């Protein structure tokens, strides 16, 4: 039962609290969507409001579409209304061409839909017309037939006079055109249809004529029908259970061939594939592979699967094989001309397959990556890893020049013990890995401060304990080492961070 007292749904915005949904008593009191809550309170001082829950609306809409599925498989929500969200009432289109006789005719169908909606707690109006635009207008402005006010059916050549009395707001025009039309005295649909078409476009813009043509079916209108996703799933039952690994591999090959063919016709490629083998005793063995790029080639998938196939125990036989691709992706356009472009694309595909093959062999701690440059002064944070098959960052940032960096970085830095240091602070003799190193030359310091957002509680931004002073030294054997000092003055902590090549 709907509320009998005014109630609004509000949304907090950067401009303030806005009203985004009103119920029928509130609308009667003069409230509308888009006004501020303070304006609405000036009309109705004790107006109750509740904050918006956008997920709730989506969930209700999804459920509604599932319910309406029984009347027609082609259901399209009115996305314009839900997009701006300020109307407070949504709508759903059903494509019922050639289907109304299953419910006993058009009038009976409307009655049934309205009863169904009422049972579920929705206040709804239903209408049937020749085009989507006419149906939209009819549901809102048709007065209903004489015997039953709920049955609104507009059949255009016959009900032309009725349609001519619809107000111009039935054309789904934007907010700024409707006042202009009413100022010109064009209040009803019949006023516009008689005007010369060229004048309408010149004076009012192309939108009015476009909507008018859609109303009368002179222009097509494309609706976003909610269609169930095609599951990329193929299954096959075997009357004689497969007891042999070779037969099983052959069966999977056939299914993969079919799957890849249908993927190719849709220009899709799979990213993940799971193969389920159902044994006669009900045990299900699942093999899953993942690819780095969208893949259409059967040979590649067969090879990836082949590494996991020995784990399948056929037992007394396998009676069903299900091949399922839960994750598919669009494949980028491939040029098929005799050009160098083709070679590079072919290389890219082959490289992606190579990366897949290697990734499938790696252990838990093994990493395959493409190095990239991150804008940070800390050396260990500047070198980052990224996905090898879909690199997004450059190997080197063009606008971030670096001072000399070592060729090998020891990460994490290894502790060293400075035995002797010069008055300037550079080390003279130190011990690393139990080896004593005599410093012949030292360069530095290069100071690298920690990132200030890393330790916000610290007030002294200049020198913290994490500030590093880097030195390049050459030891008695000619190696160039990179070491740094942290910590308080007098309580230095020295670490070795890398080796230079020269």
């Amino acid at each position: 039962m709907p509320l009998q007292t005014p109630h609004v749904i509000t949304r907090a915005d950067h401009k303030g609290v806005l009203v985004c949904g009103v119920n029928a008593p509130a609308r009667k009191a003069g409230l509308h969507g888009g006004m501020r809550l303070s304006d609405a309170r000036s009309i109705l001082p004790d107006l109750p409001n509740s904050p918006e829950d956008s997920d709730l609306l989506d969930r209700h809409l999804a459920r509604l579409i599932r319910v309406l599925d029984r009347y027609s498989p082609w259901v399209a929500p009115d996305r314009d209304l839900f997009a701006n969200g300020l109307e407070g009432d949504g709508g759903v289109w059903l494509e019922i061409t050639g289907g109304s006789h299953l419910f006993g005719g058009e009038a009976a169908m409307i009655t049934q839909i309205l009863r169904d909606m009422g049972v579920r707690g929705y206040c709804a109006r239903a209408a049937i017309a020749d085009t989507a635009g006419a149906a939209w207008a009819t549901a809102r402005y048709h007065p209903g037939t004489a015997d039953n006010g709920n049955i609104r059916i507009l059949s255009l050549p016959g009900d032309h006079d009725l349609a001519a009395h619809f107000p111009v707001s039935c054309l789904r025009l934007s907010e700024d055109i409707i006042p202009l039309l009413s100022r010109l005295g064009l209040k009803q649909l019949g006023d516009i249809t008689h005007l010369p078409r060229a004048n309408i476009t010149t004076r009012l813009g192309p939108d009015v004529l476009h909507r008018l043509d859609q109303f009368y079916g002179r222009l097509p209108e494309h609706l976003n029908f909610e269609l169930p996703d095609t599951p990329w799933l193929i299954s096959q039952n075997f009357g004689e259970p497969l007891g042999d690994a070779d037969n099983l591999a052959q069966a999977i090959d056939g299914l993969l061939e079919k799957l890849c063919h249908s993927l190719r016709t849709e220009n899709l490629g799979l990213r993940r594939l799971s193969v389920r083998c159902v044994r006669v005793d009900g045990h299900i063995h699942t093999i899953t592979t993942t690819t780095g790029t969208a893949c259409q080639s059967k040979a590649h998938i067969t090879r990836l699967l082949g590494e996991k196939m020995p784990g399948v125990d056929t037992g007394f036989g396998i009676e069903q094989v299900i091949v399922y691709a839960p994750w598919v992706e669009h494949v980028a356009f491939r040029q098929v001309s005799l050009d160098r472009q083709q070679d590079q694309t072919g290389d890219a595909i082959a490289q992606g397959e190579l990366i897949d093959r290697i990734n499938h062999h790696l252990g838990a701690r093994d990493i395959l990556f493409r190095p990239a440059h991150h804008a940070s002064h800390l050396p260990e944070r500047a070198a980052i890893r990224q996905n090898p098959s879909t690199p997004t960052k450059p190997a080197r940032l063009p606008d971030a020049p670096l001072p000399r960096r070592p060729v090998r970085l020891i990460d994490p830095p290894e502790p060293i013990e400075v035995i002797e240091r010069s008055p300037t602070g550079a080390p003279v003799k130190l011990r690393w890995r139990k080896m004593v190193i005599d410093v012949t030359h030292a360069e530095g310091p290069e100071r690298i401060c920690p990132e200030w957002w890393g330790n916000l509680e610290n007030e002294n931004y200049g020198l913290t304990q994490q500030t590093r002073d880097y030195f390049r030294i050459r030891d008695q054997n000619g190696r160039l080492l990179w070491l740094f000092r942290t910590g308080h003055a007098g309580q230095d902590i020295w670490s070795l961070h890398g080796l230079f090549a020269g």
Partner: protein
Amino acid sequence: MSDRRLHQARTALARAEQQWKSQVSGASGATGGVIPRVFGGLDLSGHISIGGLASVGLHEVMCGHDDGAASLLAWYLAVLPQPNDRMNTGFAQSARQSAAQQIPSSQHLSPSTTAMTATETETKTKTKMETATVAAMATVMPPDIPTKPVFWIRQRRALDQGGFYPLCLPQYRSDPDALMLTVDQQQTALWACEEVARSGQVGTVLIETTDYDLTTARRLQLACESGESRIIVMRPAPRSCTFGHHRGLPPSSAWTRWQISPDIPNSKDAQTHATPSYIDPTGNYHHLSLIGGRGVRPGSWKVKTDAATFSISVADPLENRLSRTTTAATATKQHAHAGSPPHG
């Protein structure tokens, strides 16, 4: 009488030279052509019997004391362009002609302008060329060849001095892309190396690994040949051969085997070397040794690593010329002189 014995000796020498030249040329593997000049114009035809560095195949860098310089050497060997690159050939020939015209002035160029020549000229023409033109040739790097990436495989704890840091590469040079793989087990590392090399999708595979046997080396070599790629192995040298003397090296079937060690500034003969008394911002001096391989006469050079271009070039042309004119007769003597680094 002495003339006759001299003639006999010369004939024997020529025969030995011929035999050395044809020693490995019949073996498979030199299909991808050879790179005759590396390290800033250093001619390797007197040291390697196939006439230069095999561009397809297995090479080894023995790492010991200084992994930083070894990493630089490995990267330098990895990004050497293939000599049979079809876009490279015409460019290289024209560059060689221009370099031949620049011979008198090229002496004044600094050795840091690296020459990566990629000519497929015969050895005879190279030996006829002026021996003093070793210092510099034009840097032969066509600007926009789509180069294949370099695949760097690191086996954890194989070399214990950290991991490769890709930001050390110079900013304003188009190095090939790098793909890096870090694994725990040697088995995985070698498998991945073979798989990548066989696929032909990368130009060079760099692998840091511990010791492996001859069968593995042969497998890697075959994988290189089928994929036309190059493998640079960085393997730790045994403790006994890190400082100069190369006894007890594990055997391998690699084309060449290199070692690089720093030029020690405060050794007893530091005065004879022009080592600066500060850390040179342009580079550091090293001893580069060719210590083994198939049909290889060992040699040793003093080289300078260049930080700006991340390359290695022969430090001083005089020493380079001495090792270039090495003949078969003086090879052992020369090697005894040059092969042992000058420290006590």
